[in-house]
């Protein structure tokens, strides 16, 4: 099979024991990274929110309370399990697996560093680089939905069922918007492979932040992606799944101890993965300036700096999620659904088409200074025609 875009060079040659070992080691590192990442993220989240609310936050377990999430996790191992008598036992046991395994898998496509050499093999610092790339993320979030849906259903209890049906409907609605937002990048990149997308955002100087990284050329898609990603991971202000006042705990109400911990873990891993995907698609992934005073082929510039830049960008986005969590009140469910179907999906369509027009025009050699305003005007025109066609909420009241 001919490939336009390089797959991981590690896997292009013969697969011997060393290669397999490297893959296994990479898998384990990703694993540990995700687990420790979730632990630190939960701690940082509690600390930052506490700070924003003039509290101290966790402080007893370890220095600055950094081991608090670990302590919480260990506690859950010792908790008795109670499964409702009327539950669907097999599905009840299956649901946590369906929730957490896709959460692990989705991170596989995230490039966390550059291309390096391990034991004589060149390899990309990412677990897998399939040609379907970002579609893998959508597939995994599709499977992850089953975990939630079945957890709520199999409990045979009412609140979890409401929570899970709500959650699935919300995730479906925002998955549509998420997919269309990704199209805004794909039109520019012409490939689905995450590694190829990252390579196109290579660092060529400070200007490449604005010209090569996709956040500015695809600013509309970026905004839609961030909103949809928050909703897709059931993050506040879209956390209607576990609206405590109405649903107690949502879909995982009847889960206790370690099984509950698995759902909790999956939820935060999804937040990390989505932020990492946002870094990959829009913020140049591991690209960034190397250190000028060391040789460009030294380990600092090939190994360390890309990883450093990736984690720096990731932490900025994760901090933003905590900020959002602390600031915004929960949305109402009707507004939540309206927002996806009546605002986000239409905007994502328009953005994808407008970007497509500009990319095609650029290839045809048209003047971008004329083309861009013309396309923007056209998009606004279509939007207003659309808005003129549909009834307002008040008119809808009369239709019902």
């Amino acid at each position: 099979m001919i490939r336009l875009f390089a797959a991981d060079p590690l896997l292009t040659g013969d697969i011997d024991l060393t290669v397999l070992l490297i893959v296994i080691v990479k898998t384990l590192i990703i694993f540990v990274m995700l687990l420790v990442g979730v632990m630190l993220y939960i701690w940082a989240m509690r600390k930052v929110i506490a700070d924003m609310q003039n509290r101290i936050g966790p402080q007893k377990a370890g220095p600055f309370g950094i081991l608090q999430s670990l302590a919480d996790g260990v506690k859950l191992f010792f908790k008795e399990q109670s499964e409702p008598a009327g539950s669907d036992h097999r599905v009840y046991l299956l649901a946590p697996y369906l929730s957490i395994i896709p959460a692990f898998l989705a991170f596989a496509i995230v490039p966390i560093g550059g291309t390096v050499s391990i034991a004589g093999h060149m390899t990309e610092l990412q677990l897998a680089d399939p040609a379907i790339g970002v579609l893998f993320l959508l597939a995994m979030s599709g499977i992850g939905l089953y975990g939630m849906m079945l957890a709520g259903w199999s409990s045979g209890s009412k609140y979890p069922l409401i929570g899970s049906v709500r959650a699935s409907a919300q995730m479906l609605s925002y998955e549509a918007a998420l997919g269309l937002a990704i199209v805004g990048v794909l039109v520019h990149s012409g490939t689905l492979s995450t590694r190829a997308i990252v390579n196109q955002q290579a660092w060529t100087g400070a200007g490449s932040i604005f010209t090569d990284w996709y956040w500015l050329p695809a600013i509309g898609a970026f905004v839609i992606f961030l909103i949809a990603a928050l909703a897709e991971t059931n993050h506040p202000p879209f956390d209607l799944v576990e609206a405590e006042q109405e649903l107690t705990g949502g879909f995982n109400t009847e889960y206790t101890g370690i099984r509950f911990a698995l759902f909790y873990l999956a939820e935060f891993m999804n937040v990390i993965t989505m932020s990492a995907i946002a870094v990959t698609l829009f913020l140049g992934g591991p690209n960034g300036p190397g250190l000028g005073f060391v040789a460009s082929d030294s380990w600092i510039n090939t190994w360390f700096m890309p990883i450093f830049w990736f984690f720096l960008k990731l932490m900025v986005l994760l901090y933003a999620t905590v900020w959002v969590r602390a600031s915004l009140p929960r949305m109402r469910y009707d507004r939540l659904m309206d927002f996806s179907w009546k605002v986000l999906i239409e905007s994502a369509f328009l953005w994808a088409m407008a970007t497509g027009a500009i990319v095609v025009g650029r290839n045809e050699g048209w003047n971008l200074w004329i083309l861009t305003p013309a396309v923007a005007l056209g998009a606004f025109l279509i939007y207003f025609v659309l808005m003129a066609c549909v009834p307002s909420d008040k008119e809808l009241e009369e239709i019902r």
Partner: protein
Amino acid sequence: MNAVIFFIFAASTLVGAGGVVLARNPVHSALFLVQTLLSVAVLFLLQDAELLAAVQVIVYAGAIVVLFLFVIMLIGVDRREALTETLRFQRPIAVALGAIVLAEIIFLTGHTWATGAATQSGVPITGSTSSGDLGNNIQRVARVLFTDFLWPFELTALLLVVAVVGSVVLARGSGDRSERSIEEPSSTADSESAS
């Protein structure tokens, strides 16, 4: 190796298909269906049809079976299905139709044009390529879909709109009365959503 993976997932496909038919609980049936769909996705991967595999997971497992589950939860699983058939001769007709489909499949596999063989590397699927570069599976599908199969593609949009119209008509029901009767039993489920 190829054969080993094929047989594992082919078996998994068949087990899932059997489960769909044999499971008593509709939710279990839906889950077996997911197993079948995922196994078929792996079989697609074996044929180097990556895009198709992704579509299989995203659309079938991620959307259509979820829709089934919504319907199952809407109806409720408590209700025992009546095992007496309302359609007379349903069983013999089903057996006859199944036999015809099986015969068709066996007939078609005898002809190479219907086997769905793996995309052959280096052989263009379509003649309308300017460069010698064929690209990967996704780019090939894009080129074929948006040139040779343009008309069916646009018709798909029409088909989808028909589906939207159909679902809207179904969901609105024939009038207020029928709508009420659907929503009432589930009042426990959702009276709180406007809070």
